[in-house]
């Protein structure tokens, strides 16, 4: 479900800014590292883990805002290739910066003490933390959807996705809106990283892995489509786990084959809308 958090940010940026953000996986990785660092300073006990996770996500959101405001903005209206390569360059720079700061050793964060126990469900043992993540995914999805549907900012974001020029002509500050979109998307990416840190070790290289996974999710569901991303994440998880069950060696293959099939039949994704 954490994959949904990352993919949602990616999809949001694409939907509004029409850019595939390669650096999004790096934001996720940095979210995990920042959380690790904060945990080193503050510890995880007494609910502090939640503080650190939020802090990590907010730090990444701020970083995303700065990047958009000072660099990314100059590339609007240029060739997609330049935008794509810029986000790639960003991924390289930030990824290496993380390596400089935290080294190549695996870093792990202990689970928050409230959720270290395990539950026995249907004969299987599930750590409470994993269960919490499973439930948190839909909760965040719902919250995010409500923000998009019901708030003023959400309405502006949806309007910008449909027609940025008209929105600008109607007197909205589209530039500021884009920065906010980038901030929210980075927040989601960072939060994904922060919440995954107690479940998986944080290592350099997790960024390039996750970004491809997130691409698959977003493409299957539909670039820029919110519920599509949710559906994509579900499908991705199912195909991967059932694939491992039936053809253990070719489950990765099945996932990419699915991505290619979706692109061939419905390039805009299962729940997406064709671009004009």
């Amino acid at each position, binding site marked *: 479900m954490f994959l949904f958090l990352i993919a949602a940010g990616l999809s949001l940026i694409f939907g509004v800014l029409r850019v595939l953000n390669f650096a999004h996986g790096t934001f996720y990785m940095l979210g995990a590292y920042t959380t690790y660092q904060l945990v080193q300073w503050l510890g995880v006990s007494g609910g502090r883990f939640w503080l650190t996770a939020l802090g990590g996500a907010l730090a990444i959101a701020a970083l995303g805002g700065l990047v958009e405001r000072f660099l990314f903005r100059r590339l609007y209206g240029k060739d997609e290739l330049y935008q794509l390569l*810029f986000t790639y360059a960003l991924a*390289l720079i930030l990824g290496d910066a993380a390596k400089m700061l935290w080294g190549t050793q695996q870093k792990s964060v202990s689970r928050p003490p409230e959720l270290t126990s395990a539950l026995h469900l249907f004969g299987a043992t599930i750590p409470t933390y994993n269960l919490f993540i499973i439930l948190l995914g839909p909760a965040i999805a719902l919250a995010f959807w409500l923000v998009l549907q019901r708030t003023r900012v959400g309405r502006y974001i949806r309007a910008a996705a449909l027609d940025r020029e008209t929105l600008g002509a109607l007197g909205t500050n589209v530039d500021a809106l884009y920065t906010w979109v980038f901030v929210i998307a980075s927040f989601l990416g960072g939060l994904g990283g922060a919440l995954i840190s107690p479940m998986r070790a944080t290592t350099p290289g997790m960024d390039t892995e996750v970004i491809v996974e997130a691409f698959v999710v977003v493409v299957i569901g539909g670039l820029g489509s919110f519920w599509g991303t949710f559906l994509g994440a579900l499908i991705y998880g199912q195909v991967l786990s059932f694939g491992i069950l039936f053809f253990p060696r070719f489950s990765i293959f099945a996932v990419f084959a699915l*991505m290619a099939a979706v692109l061939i039949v419905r390039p805009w994704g299962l729940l997406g809308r064709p671009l004009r």
Partner: protein
Amino acid sequence: MRRIPWALLVLLAALLVPAAGSRFYTFLANDVIIWALFATSLNLLVGYTGLVSFGHAAYFGIGAYTTGILMKKAALPFVLAFPAAGVLAGALALLFGTFCVRLTRIYFAMLTLAFAQIVWAICFKWNEVTGGEQGMPEVPYPDLAWMGSLPVLRDLRTSDHFYLLTVLLVALCLWILHRIVRSPFGRMLTTIRENAERAEFIGVHVRRYELAAFVLAGAFAGLAGGLFGIFNRGVFPDFAYWTKSSEVLIMTLLGGMGTFWGPSVGALALILLNQQIVSYTEYWPFVLGIILVVLLFGFPGGLAGAAELLGRRLWRPRRA
């Protein structure tokens, strides 16, 4: 005024590299030359036809595996195994390209990426044939004993002989690619890049041209891969991973898209730079990222574009 035959001069200089006697420089030059072919093949697609492929490494990887497997497991001679790399990569490009050219812009890039990841996943997991995650080490050198019997080349190492072979083959490939770009077919690709709609209006079957460019680019990338597998003394799944695709894209961009020699210059610049920087710091990706940002903001035309600009500024006063 006679034109200076730059291409021939460069070829001659490249052939003289082993004469310097340094194993290291020959190695470096070999690396550059193979990447130059790979980047030039991508340029046919990105620079000339305007199709941004994010999965060009797939064909490079296929070529490398084809030559590697044929030479190591089937013990076929290089004369057969090398063209096979181009043929198989081209055939795969035909299959994938058929679907890719139906999509536009960002979706095209995504689908090429998806196909490349499929190729990578197969190479990564199909242990019996590709060696899986471990790759396939110890691809043999082609039998180049005949070179040793030539008078001047007798004292050179096997790797030097292979280097000379690489230079000649890449020169041949580049010459063919140059002919393609300058042909009416190549001009039509540029027309499609500039305005696909108009090309359609004047009766050009745009998709068919794009597919042809895709197949050609894939085939030449396959040939580059075939050479690289031997040069690298082994073939590994990350040849087809998406980071390789972006690497070659950066080279093409660095040198200058849409100029014929740009990608080769980019390959040279990037590999030499890598060599230099790696001896100072382990954070090469960091530096690469910064180079890329400077390039994107400062010199969108790449090195060739910058040189052209400089050249124009220098020449204009004289003409006036």
